[in-house]
């Protein structure tokens, strides 16, 4: 039986098509203003990759910030529930899930059976969310995908004193003008990001396995810095793109509800 899930986020939207334990198709697109339209588009792309159409799908799960506005979805679940479920599918031993999205950051503690015992989220302040990295990458003039690699090449990472994205951006510009290298600044940015995320993650008392989902899990610089700060190695999902965790969870919860 085939189930599908979509996660309509503020910046990007994701969809997956699942058959049992197998991903048949997936897609990630930039979100548009209308959640319904975005959901339809990303789901169509995922279905096209799977070579399927809407009528082949037994149930649709939905989550994310626009989840209540998606007409074709018949199982709506919270982001926390979907991310936790998706993370456990990706990393079966996960007891701590750190998910960094484009405009938020969540930390969850899971019991052995996968149920959520504690969670914390920040969506009030851009620092510690994907948005921080986006703003900083732009200030550095580096594509966001390249930012993570800079940490490994840094000689002496710059210490960014300001937490606020607005102040940190101004600091980065003046450090650049003062002649600091892109590598040292990039590492400083990744470290600052990790610092902020660690504060949130530490308040749910992390335990192994600690896994990371969301787009920022692809940034090696942030992951390595966060490992040092938490004192745990971080498992990055290999089964699928870590950005798909929410959509996978949505599909699984839809399947389990039937």
């Amino acid at each position: 039986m085939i189930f599908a899930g979509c996660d309509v986020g503020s910046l990007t939207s994701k969809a997956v098509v699942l058959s049992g334990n197998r991903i048949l198709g997936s897609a990630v697109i930039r979100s548009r203003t209308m959640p319904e339209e975005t959901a339809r588009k990303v789901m169509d792309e995922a279905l096209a990759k799977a070579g399927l159409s809407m009528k082949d799908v037994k149930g649709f799960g939905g989550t994310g910030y626009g989840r209540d506005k998606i007409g074709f979805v018949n199982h709506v679940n919270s982001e926390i529930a979907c991310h936790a479920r998706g993370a456990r599918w990706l990393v079966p031993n996960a007891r701590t899930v750190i998910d960094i999205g484009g405009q938020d950051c969540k930390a969850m503690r899971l019991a052995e059976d996968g149920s959520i015992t504690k969670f914390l989220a920040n969506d009030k302040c851009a620092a510690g969310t994907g948005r921080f990295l986006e703003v900083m990458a732009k200030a550095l003039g580096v594509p966001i995908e390249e930012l993570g690699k800079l940490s490994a090449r840094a000689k002496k990472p710059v210490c960014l004193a300001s937490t606020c994205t607005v102040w940190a951006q101004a600091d980065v510009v003046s450090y650049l003008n003062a002649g600091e290298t892109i590598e040292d600044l990039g590492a400083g940015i990744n470290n600052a990001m990790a610092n902020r995320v660690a504060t949130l993650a530490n308040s749910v008392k992390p335990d192994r396995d600690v896994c990371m989902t969301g787009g920022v899990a692809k940034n090696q610089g942030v992951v390595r810095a966060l490992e040092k700060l938490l004192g745990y190695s971080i498992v990055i999902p290999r089964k699928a793109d870590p950005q798909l965790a929410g959509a996978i969870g949505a599909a699984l919860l839809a399947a389990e509800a039937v």
Partner: protein
Amino acid sequence: MPVAGIDVGSLTAKAVIVENGEILGSAVVPGSPRPGESATLALGKALENAGVKREAITYIVGTGYGRKQIGNVNEVHSEIACHARGAYQRLPSVRTVIDIGGQDAKAARIAEGGAVARYAYNDKCASGTGRFLEVMAEALEKPIETLGDLALSASGSVRISNQCVVFAETEVISLVNKGIELGSIIRGLHEALAGRVAALARSIGVEKEVCFTGGVAKNKGVAKALEDALGVPLRFLDLDPQITGAYGAALLAEEATMQKKSA
């Protein structure tokens, strides 16, 4: 004998020349990455404006974010002390001073006699500082000086749900794209800023008279929103609110010379 006060802020530098408590001249200049240079520039302009020679200045007090990096000052004082001193001189009944600068916001409670009893400030988060409005003015493509009037002529206000400058900027752009009246958006922004600063002020207890200083005090829209948020009328000094700190610094300079004389 004339003295000077210099306030080197993050975005502007201000200087005031004072003699017997009266302002002889003042200047506001844009800041530079080197606080020392901005200070010299502001002082030079204020001296010119006052018609006073540099050699005639007997004492200089520095304040502001760049105060530790200004050369040739006799002493430095905190911004809180200087703003409080300046406000108290012009308005002895003042009990609360609220100052919104380019990169911070401060609230101070003044005891009878002018001493600072309590204070609170925010320079960690750009929301609740002048920078919030600067970013929004840029996003709206309107000069920052025009925001006050645009807000006051609006028919209503739109609630801005994000507190973070970065998120609020995106929100504002989408409100514009939806065709919402610009004035209503700006009024909403003023209310958001006022809400943040009012929370800061409440943390030290707001008592009348309440005086509003700093560059943002020139924005009538913010002043109105802050009055509404606090539920008390705001008082303004009979000088450019932006030079309050430098003025207070100059007054402290004059006091220092008097103490030296009597000693």
